[in-house]
């Protein structure tokens, strides 16, 4: 079962994915490393309780997200406003805008998106998880997850298009 997975192999397999998820949530390399290590620490103590080996990846992402939410609560960082309803027009963002943005710019834009919307959006972009799996990781209804991803994606694309010069001007 899950406990049979060697810890070192588990770290090798998922360290990068979890770190990127943590970095995208926090925007801080130190916080991302802390969250990732804390996730493996919890795994080392509680991972043996997991019954299905196939659920390891989801379990790790769920745990990291929970630890992130705990950190947010401690810092009182939960904003009360929802994502900007006015920005929900469907974007027509050329792929060139994304190509010109480096990962630091993407992280900065992600950091501007509300926590509750950022996590599903990050999983949508960086992991090969189905919508049902993303919903399971975040313990949210499927419809809520899809709605949050859509709204957060629109906001990200709008900000991306505002951040970059049009191709003609960039040359």
């Amino acid at each position, binding site marked *: 079962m899950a406990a049979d997975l060697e810890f070192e192999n588990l770290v090798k397999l998922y360290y990068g994915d979890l*770190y*990127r998820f943590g970095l995208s949530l926090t925007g801080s390399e130190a916080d*991302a490393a802390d969250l990732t290590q804390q996730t493996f*620490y919890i795994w080392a103590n509680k991972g043996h309780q997991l019954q299905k080996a196939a659920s390891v990846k989801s379990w790790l992402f769920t745990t990291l997200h929970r630890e992130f939410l705990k950190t947010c609560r401690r810092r009182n960082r939960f904003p009360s406003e929802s994502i900007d309803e006015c920005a929900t027009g469907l974007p027509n*963002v050329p792929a060139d805008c994304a190509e010109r943005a480096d990962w630091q710019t993407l992280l900065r834009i992600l950091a501007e998106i509300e926590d509750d919307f950022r996590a599903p959006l990050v999983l949508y972009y960086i992991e090969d998880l189905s919508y049902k799996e993303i919903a399971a990781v975040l313990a949210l209804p499927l419809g809520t997850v899809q709605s949050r991803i859509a709204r957060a994606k629109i906001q990200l694309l709008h900000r991306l298009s505002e951040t970059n010069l049009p191709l003609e001007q960039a040359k």
Partner: protein
Amino acid sequence: MNKREAKEILLLYRGPIDDSDPQFHAALGYAKTDPELCQWLGEQTRCYDTIRAKLRAIQPPPPGPEARSRRSPRR
């Protein structure tokens, strides 16, 4: 289904990973009949691929000694 509805659905479409998801089937079919929507879809999936590749290219620092020295989970 009209173009606007198809676009709203396809906003979440990521490419092959979502091909087996039935919620996209009708909208993908609609896009095949609408060149403008088809072009928008191509652009948006290219945009998705680019953002995904950039985020996935972030290299983490090596795990700290604390993590490396952890023992295997209890059995």
